[in-house]
């Protein structure tokens, strides 16, 4: 079996399983749906690991051959040609996994499986509580698989128009999961989710079409112009004005899906009303898939327009998302809505990092990974609270550590991780964000962001004080939830700690390769040496160093090792 067959199989398997589950009678045992769901997720994880080996090895070889002993950066076309060749590509070029998309495929595979295991306990509890019936169990698992398929498609597609189709499909695949409880609020959240995201993402289509059309004109091949790897080598020849407009459209479009301010309004409603495992996937992984598509167009626009414009747009939208999100986090008393605003704030951090450039690009990728695991953990824990306290209202939740000690400890550590405390992974990505901002000369922005992050720390510290500690409500017995719920949460916390304390070399290498690819492309076009846009030098000067193998890296990557 070839490696591209593994990739195609990995993407199509959840779609097939989703159709099979939908075809099964609703009266089928829940164990059948649970088993099919977990088996599929396990196979996807194995496929992701199989894909990772050649992608990381191939990327290392490509970069080292280009940078070589001279240590000079390649020009845009050379870098683009090299990056376009790296990775596993399907026949016809429709699907492709490179180091950048590998990061997101692995997130989907790992978090998808852990949340899938957690779902078993959560859905059974909802079934016993009468919140859902047997037919909803079938709906949940069938749409869970469809959700995984759409995210895998978004992460692996090499076709820029299919990127839009995949992101739109993530909305359509999840809307019934958001509204699965059928309550008035759940249906309202589902309606807002579908109407806001479908409208917002439609803006993205215009951005994609502008890029496609301009590329088709330059390439003279309408079919080739639809592929990102074909657009990349000619990105420097694209019309700068058109690409500036296209980038704004794509940022608005896919930024809506990512939860960027001011297009974030669907996010707290959908996250709060969806079942907690769905919230965990929405916030942990889906937002990152939208970020991946933004990064793809960020690279094209940086090459075509120059980094200065792209940086400005990213800094404005990212900065606003952080500042506004921070104050909403502080004000919210609904735990899941608090976490949802935190997602908007953290996507803001990622986009801000992209705006800073340099080590900010690596910081953005590290933040993507760290936030994905932390937020998946926190939304799963919000499910624990719902099962234990039957409310999301923080005024009614207290003494978790007394009522359910393991959940209490996990919540305490998870909130510390989400606040960006050391030694958790988000501490490093936020520190690199500050370094990247200072390196880019954005002192005022960095100051504002640090103040906003302090507000976030205060908000979560108050939550720890009131919800985790204090005394449990009178009459509530001390009883922990089952191991099916707790084990995946413990694993998620261990991963967050592991990433912060001693990042596994495989993860470091993948992140470093992905970050280096983006850096090389942007710096090649804007020119650290031989700059085309002299004003952008300060923004794109990347502290790239080369190790003994000639592999481009950054001090930040070194720190994470």
């Amino acid at each position, binding site marked *: 079996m070839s490696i591209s067959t593994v990739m195609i199989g990995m993407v199509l398997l959840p779609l097939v399983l989703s159709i099979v589950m939908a075809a099964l009678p609703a009266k089928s045992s829940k164990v059948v749906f649970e088993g099919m769901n977990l088996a599929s997720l396990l196979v996807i994880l194995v496929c992701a690991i199989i894909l990772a080996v050649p992608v990381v090895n191939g990327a290392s070889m490509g970069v080292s051959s280009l940078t070589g002993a001279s240590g000079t950066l390649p020009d845009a076309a050379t870098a683009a040609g090299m990056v376009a060749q790296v990775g596993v590509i399907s026949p016809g070029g*429709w699907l492709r996994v490179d180091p950048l998309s590998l990061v997101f495929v692995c997130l989907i595979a790992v978090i998808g499986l852990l949340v899938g295991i957690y779902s078993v306990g959560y859905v059974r509890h909802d079934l016993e509580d009468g919140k859902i019936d047997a037919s909803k169990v079938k709906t949940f698992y069938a749409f869970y698989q469809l959700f995984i398929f759409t995210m895998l498609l978004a992460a692996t597609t090499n*076709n820029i*128009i*299919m990127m*839009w*189709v995949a992101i*739109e*499909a993530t*909305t*359509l695949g999840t*809307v*019934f999961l958001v*509204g699965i409880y*059928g309550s*008035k*609020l759940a*249906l*309202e*959240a*589902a*309606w*807002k989710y*579908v*109407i806001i995201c*479908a*409208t917002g993402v*439609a803006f993205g*289509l*215009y951005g994609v*079409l*502008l890029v*496609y*059309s*301009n590329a*088709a*004109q330059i390439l003279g091949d*309408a*079919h080739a112009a*639809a592929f990102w790897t074909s657009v990349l080598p000619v990105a420097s020849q694209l*019309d700068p*004005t*058109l690409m500036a407009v296209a980038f704004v459209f794509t940022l608005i479009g896919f930024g809506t899906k990512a939860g960027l301010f001011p297009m974030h*309004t*669907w996010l*707290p*409603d959908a996250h*709060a*009303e969806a079942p907690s495992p769905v919230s965990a996937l929405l916030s942990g992984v889906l937002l990152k898939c939208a970020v991946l598509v933004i990064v793809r167009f960020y690279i094209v626009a940086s090459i075509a327009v120059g980094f200065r414009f792209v940086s400005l747009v990213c800094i404005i939208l990212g900065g606003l998302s952080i500042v506004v999100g921070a104050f909403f986090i502080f004000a919210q008393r609904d735990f899941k809505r608090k976490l949802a605003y935190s997602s908007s704030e953290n996507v803001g951090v990622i986009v801000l990092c992209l705006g800073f450039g340099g080590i900010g690009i690596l910081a953005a990728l590290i933040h993507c990974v760290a936030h994905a695991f932390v937020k998946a953990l926190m939304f799963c824990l919000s499910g624990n609270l719902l099962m234990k306290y039957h409310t999301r209202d923080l005024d009614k939740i207290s003494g978790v550590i007394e009522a359910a000690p393991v959940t209490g400890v996990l919540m305490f550590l998870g909130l510390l991780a989400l606040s960006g405390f050391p030694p958790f992974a988000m501490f490093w990505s936020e520190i690199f964000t500050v370094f990247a901002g200072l390196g880019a000369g954005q002192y005022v922005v960095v100051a504002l962001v640090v103040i906003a992050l302090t507000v976030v720390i205060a908000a979560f510290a108050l939550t720890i004080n009131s919800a985790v500690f204090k005394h449990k409500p009178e009459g509530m017995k001390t009883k922990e939830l089952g191991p099916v719920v707790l084990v995946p949460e413990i694993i998620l916390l261990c991963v967050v700690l592991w990433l912060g304390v001693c990042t596994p070399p495989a993860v470091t290498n993948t992140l470093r390769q992905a970050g280096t690819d983006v850096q090389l492309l942007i710096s090649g076009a804007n020119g650290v040496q031989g700059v085309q846009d002299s004003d952008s030098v300060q923004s794109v000067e990347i502290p790239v160093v080369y190790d003994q193998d000639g592999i481009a890296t950054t001090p930040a990557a070194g720190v994470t090792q």
Partner: protein
Amino acid sequence: MTLLTAINALAALLILTSISVVSTSSVRSAAIRYAIQSVVLVIAFVVLGFAHEARELFIWAGTATLTKVIGVPALLLFMLKKVGQAEAEGTGKGIKMGSLSLPGNIPVGGLVAISACEVALCLVVVNGVELPVAQGVKPALALSLAHFFIGVTCIVSQNNILKQILGFCLMENGSHLTLALLAPGAPEMVEIGVTTDAIFAMVIMALLAYRIYKTQHTLDARDLTELKG
């Protein structure tokens, strides 16, 4: 009349039909007008197919006939039958549906004025676009963009959920014409993907609207404001 002039004329006809959809007071009438608009869109695809000698556009014209001319209006009319015409248009007893004839607080005249401004603005913006594929069809490109924004205006200005769905359909028609104008030779798979997405979106919205109606006895978006975003 050259083929490109015909495309520009068809795009102008699309704008007129979309204003007609937005301004009608009846969902049934709006669905039928949408079907007529989709016929215009299909003709535009065929003409573009001849202009660019693009086989893909003929395939797309076929799928658009099935989905947009027949599928979407049929689904909306089926929804109306299930919900009941009177209820859907806000005249049913005890059921709040949201006004239709005067959407939101914006009178029909206001909507037409907004649409005209959107058309003017898009004409100005698209005039600066220098793409070989857009030469000769700049008016159509501007009108397709304006069509998209008229759809957005319909979504934000209407209280009735079914009319919001129609607004989404108008948006889709605008973006699909843009796609045909700017990417006439795009792989069939892409066009099928975009169309399928749009149809699934529409079906899912209609199903959701029906569930909202069944459980909440309302199709008025103003009754869905407990969550504050």
